């Protein structure tokens, strides 16, 4: 099946279920799949980005394998390369979110 992530790109799983250590990890996984299902890029293209991101990681600095950090980086690069989400608006939005007052809805963390 073309949607399979195996070998180096295999996501962390237990009991046959995906493991997300934080909700944002589930969100990025869901985003990548949903965007590819919507035809904005093919799953194989995303997988190429993921393989590159994982291969480029600094094993010593990383400590525990941070699969979803690489997943997020891959998605970000792919979206930038496609002109779907440019780096500048993304940084602006991140800064806005960081500046939110304490006690905002932490629903996505």
């Amino acid at each position, binding site marked *: 099946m073309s949607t399979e992530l195996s070998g180096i790109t295999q996501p962390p799983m237990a009991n*046959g279920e995906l493991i997300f250590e*934080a909700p944002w990890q589930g969100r990025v996984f869901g985003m990548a799949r949903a965007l590819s299902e919507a035809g904005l890029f093919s799953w194989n293209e995303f997988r190429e980005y993921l393989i590159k991101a994982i291969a480029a990681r600094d094993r010593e600095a990383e400590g525990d394998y941070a699969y979803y950090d690489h997943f997020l980086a891959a998605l970000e690069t792919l979206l930038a390369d496609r002109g779907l989400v440019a780096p500048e608006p993304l940084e602006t939005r991140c800064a806005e979110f960081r500046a939110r007052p304490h006690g905002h809805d932490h629903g996505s963390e």
Partner: protein
Amino acid sequence: MSEHENHPASQQSIRAEAIESLLIEKGLLSEDAVDEVIVQYNERVGPMNGAKVVARAWKDPAFKLRLLTDGTRAVEEFEFTGGQVEKLVVVENTPAVHNVVVCTLCSCYPWAVLGLPPKWYKDPAYRSRIVREPRRVLAEFGVQISSSKELRVWDSSAEIRYMVLPEMPSDSESTSEEELAARVTRDAMIGVALL
């Protein structure tokens, strides 16, 4: 999850949220689509392992024999990740016999090959009724088992997990193993659906 400023995870969650909000604003994505993927993926990835096992058994009589003789060992040939299979017993549907799996005590389930159990599998009504009135329960699933066919109900336990080897669809003799696997459903491997 409470994280303070500059904590790496918190930075990642902000980036993820920022990307999602930008994509939604551009109309490229909806929140529901993301939710849907997560649910769907969990339901599909698990049973995919079992489907591969079934497809190989259909194509390869020697494997099928190994599978029916010692399910646990036969499944090891696949090197599935995601955990150890407890003792796995595979029961074969034939023109004369239909098998269905339950766990009357709790919800023991061969998750290494089938992923997560569906909600109804844990439901007390299914667990008791499939033993008492299996033909009626199967009919409610849309599966009619004629009274001339033997019906076997297998009660899973912590030690033994059962999986059904469904009958191969009659129109699929020349289909590849991979294509066959795509036709195998989770419910067919529990025994509450036919293919």
